[in-house]
């Protein structure tokens, strides 16, 4: 293995660690939100600092790779895509942090019926599995798995699209609940954004492996609205 290969490997490792952390933050935010666990929420908020410093450190690693090694061809595409995945992961961490903030903020839990009707649990599950899948896909350079991940985002978009109507209906009936329901809606939006970011990561993997750019092509996407 050459010096450059060793450095690229280290970068991949760092991204993997960040993915593991992001997954853990997201998973904790699911439990914190669904079980209304304020202590767990505090934990998430605390670990957010670690995510931020990891992002800075990976950014610096990528900068050094460019400056010192002038990578070309697939190595260049690799570093570029890892940089973008890096900022995507940091945003996911932000969203988990935001969800934790809601839990800390609320005085009492949200009506579990509302949560169930909106399908929030499923959203969490989908995003968590997408995240795990994309990590595996990067390891194996598995573009078909990446495409599966890419398509899953559509499901999230659909849940999100329906959520606004469902929640509006509940709000009309129960005006007491407006504040918590808005938080619920916001959480749905956040998870939809998380899905978008992971979808972007899938695009980056395909770009890196096949040098094919999927962005803005509307390819593979079945949903047309973002709601």
């Amino acid at each position, binding site marked *: 293995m050459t010096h450059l290969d060793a450095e690229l490997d280290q970068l991949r490792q760092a991204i993997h660690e960040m993915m593991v952390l992001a997954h853990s933050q997201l998973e904790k935010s699911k439990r914190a939100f669904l079980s209304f666990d304020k*202590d767990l929420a505090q934990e998430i908020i605390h670990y957010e600092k670690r995510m931020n410093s990891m992002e800075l450190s990976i950014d610096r690693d990528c900068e050094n790779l460019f400056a*010192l090694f002038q990578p070309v061809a697939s190595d260049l595409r690799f570093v570029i895509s890892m940089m973008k995945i890096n900022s995507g992961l940091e945003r996911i961490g932000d969203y988990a942090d935001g969800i934790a903030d809601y839990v800390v903020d609320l005085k009492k839990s949200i009506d579990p019926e509302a949560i169930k009707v909106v399908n929030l649990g499923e959203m969490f599950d989908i995003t968590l599995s997408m995240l795990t899948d994309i990590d595996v896909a990067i390891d194996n350079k598995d573009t078909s798995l990446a495409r599966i991940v890419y398509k899953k985002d559509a499901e999230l978009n659909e849940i999100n699209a329906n959520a606004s109507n469902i929640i509006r209906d509940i709000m009309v009936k129960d005006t007491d609940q407006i504040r918590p329901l808005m938080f619920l809606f916001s959480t749905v939006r956040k998870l939809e954004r998380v899905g978008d970011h992971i979808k972007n990561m899938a695009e980056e993997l395909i770009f890196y492996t096949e040098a094919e750019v999927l962005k803005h092509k509307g390819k593979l996407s079945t949903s047309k609205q973002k709601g």
Partner: protein
Amino acid sequence: MAKEDEMVVAEVVNKIQESMITLVEDVVEAKETKLEASNIEVFYGHFQAIKNIQMKMPSNSVTAFIGPSGCGKSTFLRLFNRMNDYVDGFSMKGEIKLNGEKIYRNKINVEELRKEVGMVFQKPNPFPKSIFENVAYGLKIQGIKDKKLIAARVETALKQADLWEEVKDDLKKSALALSGGQQQRLCIARTLAVEPSVILMDEPTSALDPISTAKIEELIFQLKEKYTIVIVTHNMQQASRISDYTAFFYMGELIEHGKTKEIFTNPKHERTENYISGRFG
């Protein structure tokens, strides 16, 4: 463990993560100084080739000297093994220290110095003898006669220089029959056989093709675990790839000297930035 304690632990872990990076860098700083130059001025007759340079280089590191042609980097390099002594009109002021000891003093044994500080030149210059004799030369001139010892040292050196596999079947072959890249690795092996602690390299790959260059760069990267290496190079990308520290020379002055990472991402002087981005020189 209670939740509060978990939090405290997490906090501590966070802090440790952040300071780990600076700690590692500080350890690198604390490596001992292998080579030191103070108040160096070099003249060729009346012409001043080097103007007042100070520099310290730590052991087990690679330092690259970069700069435009004629800036004095090769002259400065050759101070460390006193090869400038043979140039007409050479004179110098200041001190050069190896392991803390001055090397420009009256009673110095120059031959001993050069056994500790080896040199590899720009154009591969193997002796017109066999591969074995080339690598064994340094031992021969020291008076070593033990054939087994010599054979063992030759093999070790050729392995270190990543050439053993290619030549082990016929060490009696003439060194001049090897390709350019192989000849240069032979020159490196010949230097390593003497077991120096410092290796000076004066543009070692500028006469070679890209593949040989890449092989030798990998070799340098491995060698720095045991040796202190100083390399003059015209190729800035090479400097960025393999060196830990970079020194930028211009018209006989040392403009900037620091960690390669910093020089190539955020140099302190504009001239350095212009040079490495190819805007002049």
